[in-house]
């Protein structure tokens, strides 16, 4: 029996070793040659795409696929429905890609992924396949997050910007202006709360997830406190960072935000706002469409939108985290040429205009936002987008998810009152340093 067990173990290990040596990679040049040409023969692509928020009802991804197939009748695109949260999506897609699966051929991914995916060979570097002036029409912040070590790993699709949504009716009732500073927002909130007109003042996202990292990145930018320095080392420190963390605590301490905000992701904060429980909401642009939809929103018609406030005596208001989704090409795809053609189509004018007219997101092509069609849509987030000061999260490290974890873990602790702002800043700084050194779990 012992002998048999040993034999079994040995054969398992031998199998493992054999499997390992059998997984040698392919040359990048070969892949790029394949990717450089749009095929003339029929091909079927799989596009991993999460639900793109729609403004009028039609499924936006289907409209884009139909438009693409009209241009390229020999290429069929099949939709593969992605999951609803960024983190779950990444886990699902990386499992497939790390196993060298040829599908999905093209996948829609978060703008925080390129460095990590590029460093792990999960996305095809595309810069050699693009014309030199390709990025001229897209926001510079989007280009910065799409590159890692000089290579482009994602093509722009749409951006998401953060806004301050507010209850027009409540501000009008109390004769108060839309706050331009956080201090003003706190005062306004407390006044309306005391009058019994709303349970809460400010609703935002402080759950232990990427949602909170976006909020923290914005508060830090409001306080002019960088996370990383120019050399890529940790810069988070000092009174600016503490001011940002102290504000997060102040919201819950004063009851302007519910203590349960520490469990909120975007959907929870939006539910509370459209249910009429809050005066202000920080959320992505798509919340405009949902707040105005009478079938889900109790406050439809009574909502206004403005850039996020800033600190009193600090930088200008209107900071927004550069969020959004881009298309990545799977290097293991059997149809690399078709995949690149499709990803480029999604970044191009025709697809971007479909997004502008039908989707509750901001097209990545900046020029689209200045067209008359943008005004006709009647969504103020589209026309206001150019006023925002976009800040990128510190994504240009393959250890970004550990860096993000350091920010959201401490942000959550300080908001929940379990640590002081000064201690949270110190702990986040230490954790980020450990992450950047590649030592964090």
């Amino acid at each position, binding site marked *: 029996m012992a002998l048999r067990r040993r034999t079994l173990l040995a054969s*398992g290990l031998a199998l493992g070793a054999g499997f390992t040596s059998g997984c040698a990679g392919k040359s990048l040049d070969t892949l790029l040659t394949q990717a450089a040409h749009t095929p003339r023969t029929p091909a079927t692509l799989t596009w991993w795409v999460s639900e793109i928020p729609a403004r009028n009802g039609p499924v936006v991804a289907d409209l884009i696929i139909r438009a693409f197939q009209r241009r390229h009748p020999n290429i069929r695109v099949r939709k593969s429905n992605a999951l609803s949260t960024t983190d779950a999506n990444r886990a699902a897609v990386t499992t497939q890609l790390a196993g060298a699966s040829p599908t999905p051929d093209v996948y829609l991914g978060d703008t925080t992924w390129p460095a990590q995916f590029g460093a792990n060979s999960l996305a095809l570097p595309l810069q050699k396949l693009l014309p030199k002036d390709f990025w001229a029409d897209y926001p510079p912040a989007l280009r910065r997050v799409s590159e890692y070590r000089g290579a482009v790993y994602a093509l722009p699709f749409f951006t998401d910007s953060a806004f301050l949504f507010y209850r027009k009716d409540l501000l009008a009732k109390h004769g108060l202006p839309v706050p331009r500073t956080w201090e003003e927002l706190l005062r306004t909130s407390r006044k309306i709360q005391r009058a019994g007109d709303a349970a809460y003042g400010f609703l935002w996202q402080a759950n232990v997830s990427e949602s909170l990292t976006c909020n923290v990145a914005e508060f830090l930018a409001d306080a002019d406190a960088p996370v990383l320095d120019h050399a890529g080392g940790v810069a988070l420190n000092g009174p600016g960072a503490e001011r940002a963390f102290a504000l997060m605590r102040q919201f819950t301490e004063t009851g302007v935000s519910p*203590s*349960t905000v520490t*469990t909120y992701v975007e959907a929870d904060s939006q*539910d509370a706002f459209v249910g009429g429980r809050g005066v202000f909401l920080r959320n992505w642009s798509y919340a405009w469409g949902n707040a105005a939809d009478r079938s889900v929103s109790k406050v439809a018609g009574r909502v206004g939108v403005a850039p996020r406030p800033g600190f009193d005596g600090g930088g200008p208001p209107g900071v927004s985290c550069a969020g959004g989704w881009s298309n990545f090409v799977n290097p293991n795809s059997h149809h690399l040429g078709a995949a690149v053609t499709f990803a480029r189509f999604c970044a191009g004018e025709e697809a971007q205009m479909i997004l502008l007219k039908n989707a509750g997101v901001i097209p990545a092509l900046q020029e689209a936002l200045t067209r008359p069609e943008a005004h006709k849509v009647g969504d103020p987030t589209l026309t206001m987008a150019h006023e925002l000061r976009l800040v990128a999260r510190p994504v240009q490290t393959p250890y970004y998810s550990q860096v993000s974890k350091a920010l959201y873990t401490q942000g959550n602790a300080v908001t929940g009152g379990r640590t002081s702002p000064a201690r949270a800043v110190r702990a986040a700084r230490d954790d980020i340093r450990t992450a950047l050194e590649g030592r964090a779990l």
Partner: protein
Amino acid sequence: MTAVPSAATASRDTAPEPAGPRSTPAPRDGGPARTSRRRKARTGWVFASPALLTIGAVTVFPVLFSVLLSFADVRLEYGGFRIESLTGDHYAAVLSSPEWREALLFTFGFTVVTVVLELVLGTVAALVLDRLGAARGWVLAVLLLPWALINVVAAQLWGYLYNGTYGGLTWFFEQLLGHQPDILGQPASAMGAMVVVDVWKTTPFVAIVVLAGLMLIPDDVYEAAEIDGANAWTTFWKVTLPQLRPIMAIAVLFRILQAFGIFDLPFVLTQGGPGTATQSLAILGYKTLFQNLEIGRGAAVATTTAVIVIGCCLLFLRLFKAQADEGGRG
């Protein structure tokens, strides 16, 4: 109290010897009989090989491969991956990480608390069920409902109840306490909330296992206890419980294995938060592997978890055996 051991021994002794035709005795010399036996053995291997290969492919290989990865420096590359070196670095990183220690502490605490609660409540439920007459079937069906629910669905259900905005339980406590409690937002209450869900979901499993054990206890043991003049408490303590011990051990072992690998509850309810308060070892492994793409380190988390849980089970079995032996001698 001599009745108990003697009854137990009696029941063991009465087990009949297996009767029936014995297999043909092996011939002493070689020859046709031996060749036929070899042929039979070969046929046996041929028939067993698909099953062996399947077990090898789905059990042995992934486990060994995961152990191999936990020592390896894995580099993903276009169209595959490469193992660059084999070291113990990942274990050093994992074992020295405060996050791992916190996850271990939470997982261990969660396992101990839930297993103890489920064992006590499950036994009480089983004793009640054992007394029920015709209604037992119905009560059993209702009791088993939580156990039959898929874990993620159950977690999501409770997630709605605990939700800070519109959760039923949040509303209930708000009426009771006068302020909105932050159930999943504070470490202690989030852990408590998770224990409640697990106990709600898994107590029926323990109850049904213990009930099966109760039904197996022969009536004459109780009669003997009654003749000896034992009251209800003594009967339970000295008769029922010792008889239930082996089956309870099985239930506890199953529960240790499941509770130690807890993933779906914290994943759905808190994502491991607030902070890292409810981050189990399984969640930490998942985040390390799938969010951070640290394949070797993720495998090291998984392997250390497996080693710890096996260690816990072996320790439990040894303690259980020692106690059973002591009980037998006493």
